C-alpha cells in the first residue's frame, strides 16, 4: 500500500498564532478520508499547510514520496503552484474562482500539465458526465452562476488533471442541504484510481459510512484514525 500523503510533526500558523500542533497523518492510495471538526479548529489550515499557503510552517509533508513541506516562513503561496503541479488538486472553500472566465475556460485552467491540456476535451466530457447541469452553461461567465454551480465548477476544475491527492475543503459549505449532498455525492462517485481524496466537512452526517475513515480535528490536533495502520490494528 503506497502512501500518497505522509505528514510528520507538522506545525503551522499565522504570525504569533499557532493553529496546528505537531500533526502526524498518513493517507494511502485509493483511500477517501474525511476530516471533521468545528469551525476554527484548523481543517482549512491543514489544507493550506499542505499547499504551502500558511504564514509559517515546519515539519515534513511528503506527497507521493516527495518532500513538499519545509520549514518556511516567507510569504504564503510562493511555492503553491509547484506543489500543485506535483499532483495536488485543491477544491478550495468558498468561491476562489475567476469571475470573468467562462465555465469552459475555467475548466481548461485546471488542466495545467501539457498532457492534460492536450486531452482537455475528453477530460471536460468526463467532468460534465459527473456534473450534468454544467453542460448547458459552458459559455456562461462563472460570475453569473449560482453557488452550487460555482462549487461544481470549482470541483470540476480540480478533476481536470490526474492529481494524486484531491483536497476538498468543505464542499457543502454555504449550499442548500440538497445541493450540498448532491455535490458530496458527486465527490464520492469519482473514481480514484490509485490517488487519494481528503475531504474536510463540518457535517459528520454527510460523510458517515461513505468514506474509508474519518479523522476528527480539535484545537489543532488530530483525533481518531490518523493513520491507516492503527485502523488495521483494531480490526
Amino acid at each position, binding site marked *: 500500500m503506497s502512501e500518497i500523503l505522509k505528514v510528520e510533526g507538522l*506545525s503551522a*500558523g499565522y*504570525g504569533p498564532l*499557532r493553529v496546528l500542533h505537531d500533526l502526524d497523518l498518513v493517507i494511502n492510495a485509493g483511500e477517501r478520508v474525511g476530516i471533521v471538526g468545528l469551525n476554527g479548529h484548523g481543517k482549512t489550515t491543514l489544507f493550506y499547510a499542505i499547499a504551502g499557503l500558511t504564514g*509559517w510552517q515546519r515539519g515534513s509533508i511528503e506527497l507521493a514520496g516527495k518532500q513538499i513541506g519545509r520549514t518556511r*516562513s516567507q510569504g504564503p503561496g510562493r511555492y503553491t503552484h509547484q506543489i500543485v503541479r506535483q499532483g495536488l488538486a485543491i477544491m478550495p472553500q468558498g468561491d476562489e474562482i475567476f469571475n470573468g472566465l467562462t465555465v469552459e475556460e475555467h475548466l481548461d485552467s485546471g488542466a495545467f500539465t501539457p498532457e492534460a491540456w492536450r486531452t482537455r476535451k475528453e477530460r471536460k466530457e468526463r467532468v460534465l458526465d459527473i456534473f450534468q447541469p454544467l453542460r448547458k452553461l459552458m459559455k456562461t461567465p462563472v460570475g453569473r452562476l449560482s453557488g452550487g454551480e460555482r462549487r461544481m465548477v470549482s470541483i470540476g476544475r480540480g478533476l481536470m488533471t490526474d492529481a494524486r491527492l484531491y483536497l476538498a475543503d468543505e464542499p457543502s459549505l454555504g449550499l442548500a442541504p440538497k445541493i450540498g449532498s448532491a455535490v458530496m455525492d458527486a465527490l464520492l462517485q469519482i473514481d480514484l484510481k490509485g490517488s487519494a481524496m481528503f475531504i474536510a466537512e463540518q457535517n459528520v452526517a454527510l460523510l458517515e459510512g461513505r468514506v474509508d475513515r474519518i479523522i476528527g480535528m480539535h484545537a489543532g490536533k488530530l483525533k481518531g484514525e490518523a493513520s491507516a495502520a492503527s485502523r488495521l490494528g483494531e480490526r
Partner: protein
Amino acid sequence: MTTQKSDYTWINPLAAWGTATGNQSAPSVEVPDIRENWDKATGYKVPTYKVGRLKHYIIWPNHGEKLWTRWRWWPTRRNMLHVTGIYNRKTAIAEKKILDRRPVYWLLCMAFLAIAPLLFPSNMQNTLLTAGTIFGIFAAINVCWTLIIGTASIFSLASYAVVGTAGFLTSWLSITYGVPWYVLPVIGSVVGLVFGLAIALPALRLDGFYYALLTLGLNELCRVFFTTSREFGSASGGLYGADSFISEAWDPMVQSHVGYYTSLLLLLAALSLFRLINGKRLGRILRMAPEKREAFAAACGVDYKRARIVIFLITSVALGFIGGFYAAQYRGVAFSIFSFDTVLLGLAMLAIGGIGKAEGAVLGTLVVVFLDKVLLDWGPMRHFMIGALMLAAVLFLNNGYFGIKRQFNAWREKKRGEWRSARTEKGGEALPEEATEIDDKDQLYFRRFDKIQRDYLKTLITPEIIEEHRRQPLGQHSEALERVLLYFRRTKMEDKYALHRAGPEGPYKIIAFSGQRGVSPRLVDDREYATVDEGYHAVFMRRVHDLMES
C-alpha cells in the same frame, strides 16, 4: 536518594481495625521520587537565548515636586515636549522620560543648517552655498508634495509643474510689467490656486493611478507648452530677468549667503505648514480614512474627499508661492523644472526618505541634492547613483529611510511570534521572551510549577488507580491516587466540578462552577448517575481527562 518500593500492592493502614468496604489492599503503581522529578523538570530543555528589552529612553533625573512641570507654548497649555514624569517602581526615585524626541532632533538639525555656512570648507564654499539654496527650495517643494501624496493620498506628479508654471508666469509678469519682487510669491500663490483647482477636478473622479499617469502627462504638456511658446523665451533655455530681493550690487558671497538663509526660511515655512496640516484636524481626519478603507471612514461621518481636496488646494497655493519665490530668488526659471528628470529626482527624494513624512522629504532632498549638485565631477554617474539609491530604497524598504525602524520592528515582531508559537510547549509555561512582558512574576513561577506537577501526575494516572477510585471514591487511598486527588482538590474555582442532586434520592448530574459570584453553575452534560459514588467517580474521570488533555 531514591526510595525503592518493593511491593506494588497498597495495604490499607486502617485494615487492622477492619474496613466496612473491604478494601484491605489495592493493586497500585510505584510513585517515582518527586525530588528526582523536580530536578529533571527544572532543567530547561527549550533552547534559550539572552533576552530583554532595549532601554529606549534616556532617563533624566526628576524631583517629586516637579513631576508635572512642563515646558509650554505661551500662552496656551500645549506642551513643547511629550514628557512623562513618574516614580520608578523598583527604586522609588522620581524620574523623567522624553517620550517623543523628534522636536529635539528637528531643533538640532535646524540649528546645524543655520550655522552650516560657517563650517563649509573655503574652497567649496560657493558650491555648497548654491547647493544649500537649492536644497532649501526643493526640500520646501518636497515637503508640500509629501503632504499631497502622503497625507492627502492623491498621487499627483504635477507638483513641479505647479511650481514651474507659477515661476514662469511671475517671471514673465515681472519682466513685462516690472512687478516688484515682493509681489511675485503672492501672484504665484494665485497661479497655484488656479492650477490646483484645475487639476483637483479630475482627482475627484479618478482612481489613484489613473490620476498619477494623468498628472505625469500634464507635466509633459506644461514642458512642451513653455518650451515652444515664444513669450517664455524658447531659445534661451529659460526665462530670466525678473526682479529679485538679492541685489546684484552686493558682494557675490553676501548674495549666496542671503540666498541660502532665505531658502532656509522658506523650508521652515513649509515645515510649519506641514505641521499645521498633518498634525491638526485635517491630517487627523485623513488618518482615519487610509487607502482602501475610505468607505468605512465615510460611513463614520468623515468627509475625506473634502479634506483631501482642501489639502490639495492649500498645498497648491503653497507650491505656487514657492514658484514665485523661486523666480524672485533666481531672477527667473529654467525649463528643466518641467523635465521628466526633475519629477524623477523629486520622486527619488521622497522614496529615499519615506513618503508621507516631513523628515523623509528633507533627508531625501539632502541626499539627492548632495549627489546631484556637490559631486559635480562624477558626470552621468550621479544620476545613475540616485537611480540606484531610489531603486534600492523602494525594493528593500517599505517606506524609505524613516520607515526602517517600523519595518524592522514589524519584522522582529513577526519572527518572534513565529518562533514563540513554534516553541511553546502546550500547558501554559511562559517562554523567556514572553516572561519579560508579564508584570506579575509570581504568575511565571506558578505556571512553571504547575506544569511540572501536571507532567508528574500524568505519569501516575494508570488503570490501577482509576480502578481503585472506582471501587472506593472516598476514604484512604494509595499514595499515587492520593497525590492525584490532592491536586484536583486544589484547583481553581472556575470550572470546578460538583454534583447536583436532581431528586431527593438522586439521580446525580455533574455541574461546573462559574467561578464568579452570582453566576450560577452550568450543567456539564445530560448524563445521570444513580448513586453518589458513581457521581464522584464520574467527576474524577472528567478531571483525569482534563489533566491528560492539558
